[in-house]
């Protein structure tokens, strides 16, 4: 038996899951897709006493549009995000990002809620959700609260979630007219976590001037970095010069750490190149 001893429960309703989380606190761990947690259990890097398997909680699995918000249940699988027509139409950046996660078998099981809660610094979905200004709706026995992505990420594998809280849904502003988007990344091998990834969107007015832009980077620190330099584009046409200046300013904002895969300088270089590529593609994709 690889993992250390735990007890297991598989509730079918959120309220039941919350009862367990409330009772056992940090001794309990939610099991969603298991694509990050089970490796940690197998290596005994995580040793929860109780595993609360939410795979049978059907009310956590949905994708719908409410007004100008795309609402995604926490148990929505990466493969569902990748293929859903609703997501493709209302937030194409999210479906493109989902297709870049791991391999097919990982996408079958992995979930958006798990990816956010796990908070791997190079994960695609946290980066995209940060760029888009999404919110997580989290629930506990004490009630519910909404956490913006600005507050959600703390550092490596650490978020603002309390041990008794469960992410119920993720709320993303839907795409509007005259928006373009892109996600770019560099990896050593297809399916690996990226060294650096960049998610970006641009919105223009009828004069083709930028009225809003969002850029977030993964793999350049403990959690996804939302670039302030995105504001430099506002009021300008997203041409080669404006994009180049923005990309340079983005690279100046970050101070990535060196590790055994890439040096700090190399990551900063990738951040600049990938931001330029993402903005160029996003600008080219803007449609009326």
């Amino acid at each position, binding site marked *: 038996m690889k993992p250390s001893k735990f007890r*297991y429960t*598989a509730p079918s309703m959120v309220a039941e899951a919350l009862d367990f989380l409330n009772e056992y606190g940090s001794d309990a761990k939610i099991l969603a897709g298991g694509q990050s947690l089970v490796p940690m259990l197998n290596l005994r890097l995580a040793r929860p006493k109780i595993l609360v398997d939410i795979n049978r909680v059907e009310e956590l699995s949905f994708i719908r549009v409410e007004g100008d918000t795309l609402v995604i249940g926490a148990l929505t699988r990466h*493969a569902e995000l990748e293929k859903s027509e609703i997501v493709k139409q209302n937030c194409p950046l999210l479906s493109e990002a989902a297709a870049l996660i791991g391999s*097919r*078998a990982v996408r*079958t099981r992995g979930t958006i809620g798990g990816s956010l809660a796990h908070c791997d610094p190079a994960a695609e979905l946290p980066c995209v959700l940060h760029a888009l200004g999404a919110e997580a709706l989290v629930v506990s026995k004490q009630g519910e609260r909404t956490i913006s992505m600005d507050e959600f990420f703390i550092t490596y594998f650490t978020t603002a979630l309390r041990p008794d809280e469960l992410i119920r849904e993720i709320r993303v502003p839907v795409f509007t007219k005259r928006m373009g988007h892109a996600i770019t990344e560099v990896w050593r091998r297809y*399916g690996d976590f990226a060294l650096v990834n960049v998610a970006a969107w641009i919105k223009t007015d009828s004069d083709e001037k930028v009225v809003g832009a969002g850029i977030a980077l993964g793999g350049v620190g403990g959690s996804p970095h939302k670039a302030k330099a995105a504001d430099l584009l506002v009021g300008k046409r997203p041409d080669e010069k404006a994009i180049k200046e923005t990309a340079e300013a983005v690279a100046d904002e970050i101070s990535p750490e060196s590790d055994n895969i890439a040096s700090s300088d190399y990551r900063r270089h990738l951040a600049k190149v990938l931001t330029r590529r993402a903005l160029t593609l996003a600008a080219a994709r803007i449609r009326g």
Partner: protein
Amino acid sequence: MVDTGACYESKRIRVTVNGVTYERDVDVRLLLSDFIRQELGLTGTHVGCEEGVCGACSVILDGKLVRSCLMFAVQADGCQITTVEGIAQGPDNLHPIQEALIENHGVQCGFCTPGVVVSMYSFLKENPEPSEEEIREALAGNICRCTGYAGIVRAVKSASRKAR
């Protein structure tokens, strides 16, 4: 159905593997991969990394490709599973993917092969006429230390034609 509200250390489960239904008491910590190999004796499902990277343990669960090392047996209660043993009709009647792997030298030590067969079987069902790039992307979830992949890619290509 799992009875909710309860919290347990072991549980009786019922799974159908390659058309045969089994009932067993399992420790909740038992991985699906170890259940298939040790409890059911179906040793075609290989175990390489146990962290989801190598693909050797791939099986099809309710029609979808999964890593059996990243699930617990208890989670498969009530499910239908296909392992590599369930893909050929018999030892003399291999599946076109298996035939093509032999013809195209897609097998050397064979450690990765069951995972490759199961993954490509599931992939070709979803995408019966893949491009070479799509095949390579789909194969990225299966690590082979021997063949250098060229033979495997050729095999999948030829099996996709045969399957048509």
